[in-house]
């Protein structure tokens, strides 16, 4: 057990714990906070996976913007009622998801690791903004433009959807 691996295990355990907290908490606000924690932990894992740019994007966009939005809506609506206990349904759902996890794990464990390819070193170290940008603006320029249109559409859509009815 090397140090990096042990670090991984710690992070992984924490991530799983906070994910469980997301789905298991009674209070919505606490769920939201647990989700923020999970996102942070995953960002750290991204860092460990030589994806610094993406890690920061995760924190800025996901944890920063999206979760804030979630909290805004939670506060706006403040739903009060808590759900009843439904052990049968909970048991059934959890069981099925557990089966899913097991099947996936089985799949993964049976497969052989992919061959490591030669890394291109053009444009900075792996995972750096330069490399990312280079790929984004050359190979993926069309999806990039489409994504911007998508955001525009989402923006307009949301404004229309959330508007109060004008009588």
């Amino acid at each position: 057990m090397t140090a990096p691996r042990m670090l991984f295990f710690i992070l992984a355990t924490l991530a799983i714990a906070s994910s469980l907290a997301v789905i298991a908490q009674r209070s919505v606000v606490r769920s939201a906070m647990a989700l923020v924690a999970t996102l942070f932990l995953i960002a750290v894992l991204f860092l460990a996976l030589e994806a610094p740019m993406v890690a920061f994007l995760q924190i800025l966009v996901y944890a920063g913007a999206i979760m804030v939005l979630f909290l805004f809506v939670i506060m706006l609506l403040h739903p009060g009622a808590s759900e009843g206990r439904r052990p049968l349904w909970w048991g059934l759902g959890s069981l099925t998801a557990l089966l899913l996890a097991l099947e996936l794990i089985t799949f993964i464990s049976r497969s052989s690791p992919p061959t490591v390819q030669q890394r291109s070193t053009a444009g900075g170290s792996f995972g750096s903004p330069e490399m990312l940008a280079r790929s984004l603006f050359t190979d993926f320029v069309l999806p990039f433009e489409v994504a911007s249109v998508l955001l525009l559409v989402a923006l307009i859509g949301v404004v229309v959807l959330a508007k109060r009815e004008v009588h």
Partner: protein
Amino acid sequence: MAISIEPLSLLRLIPLFPLLMAAGNIFLGAWWGKKRSGLLACAAVTLSFLLSLWVWWHLPAAGAFRDHLFTWIESGTFKAAVSLQVDPLAAVMLFIITGVGLLIHIYSLGYMGHDEGMVRYFAYLNLFVFFMLLLVMADNLLLLFVGWEGVGLCSYLLIGFWYQDHTNTIAGNKAFIVNRIGDFGFLLGILLLFWELGAQGVWTLDFADLKQSAHLISPQKVTLITLLLFAGAAGKSAQIPLYVWLPDAMQGPTPVSALIHAATMVTAGVYMIARLHFLFSLAPLTLKVIAAIGALTAFFAATMALAQNDIKRVLAYSTVSQLGYMFLALGVGAFSAAIFHLFTHAFFKAGLFLSAGSVIHALGGEQDMRKMGGLRPYLPTTYLTYLASALALSGAPLTAGFFSKDQILGQAFASPSGSFWLWSLAWVTAGLTAFYMFRQFFMVFHGDSRVEQRLKAHIHEAPAVMTMPLMVLALGSIFAGWLGAPEFLWGSLWDHWLQPFFGGPEGIPHGDLSQEILLMLLALASAGVGFFLAYLFYGRSGKIPDASWAGGGLYRWLLNRYYVDELYDRVLVRPLTSGAGWCAQIFDLGFIDGVVNGLAHRIREASLFWRRLQSGNVQHYLLGFLAGTLIILAYYLGR
């Protein structure tokens, strides 16, 4: 001997006029009004009658006429056409149907004049004439059968004409159903004939071709075929055991009884056997059966007529009895004599029925003879026509009935297939006939009046439109028979006319002259005794005798017609009805519906169970997705 045949396309007009007028009355009758529809109906039959006369006049020169309209069925080498043919036999029938039919149409103008359904009546009557003409003019067995069924239909419609009364519709049903039983045999006979000839390579049902090829069929098969055909004739012509519908058919209007159940439809059976005489001649056993049944029917029906109290019932049983005579004649091979009696019978029976109608009309609907009597002064014309027809029926000297019945009696005794017993039955029946006829005559017209007070004031002779036809028929009753006198008087024009058709020496064999005269005298004696007895019991005193003459029990048996209807009901009708009821209630409703409904029920239950999957809850659906995904993954894991 083959008859030469000439084409004549105006033959089709003869049945066409009544058909058109029937259709006209059905569709336009309401607009035409009662009077006009009646007159138009009579006009149509008049045209047919005139055309028939023209055809009859030109027939001897031509031999026979044919009118081919179109080919109806064509299958392989078999062809059946809608094609009309008039030969000497058909000409006789045409004359009766259109002639007597016309007289009855005219009579109906008066008799049905106040009836609401007069338009419908004339439509049905014309339709009947059409089908009857089709029947006699058909040149093949299939077309004849079409006409056969058609007249049965019209008979049903006309018997149940006053349908608001349930008894009338029941009588109509009875007629049609009993007829159907006979028709079943008839159809089997036709099919068997077709099949047997086909086995010999001859596929046809045309009369001309049948005549050529009839000898090809084996004797046993011929016997079977002819017996089946006779079953049909027995149904249509009311012989034992299928006669029960005819008395009930009296529920219909009296002119209908005259036309359909005396002069024309009931004679269709006799006609059919005459037309197929070559076939029946090949089956001596069948002929014996026909003669026996004819004689028995004649006798039994006459006994039942003795005790009836309804004026039309007596005439109905009389018709059955006279039809028995005709079949007796056919059975002993005297085909020409049978048709001759058919001819004369049309006159005097129609005359009797229409006279009875006149009486009923005068009494405002009363039909029970025990409530009549002493009507002579009120109805002088009807009295005379009735007397003429009654004398003819009883076989009084020189009347039509005398000659025709005499021929039959003579043949029954003398013909090679005749016998003493057949003759004696017919001879006794002649006496009975005279008795019941004059019993009726005296009960209605002579003696003290037993008419109800309220009706007495309105008794009036019938209008001219009714009495004219009566007088024509009365004259016919007397003189029509002169066509067929025996040799020693002035010879028979009748047999001469029909000889081309029946061929051979089937006319009156010139037997022993003294035997002929003896038989004639015996027949007269029998009729005379009958008349005398009737006069004794009913004519001399003014009153009708106590109803228990000849022993109470016998009287009751006769009055209730030997309880035959009750027997049929117990043995046939009830088991069939309850069987049908079982099928309908238990088998159909219970079992079959149960299975079908039950199946639908189970499916519905299953569907109600399974539709709970559609809970509307998205999370349930997601779980379903997940489960499916797991199964697919598991499959790939397993490989």
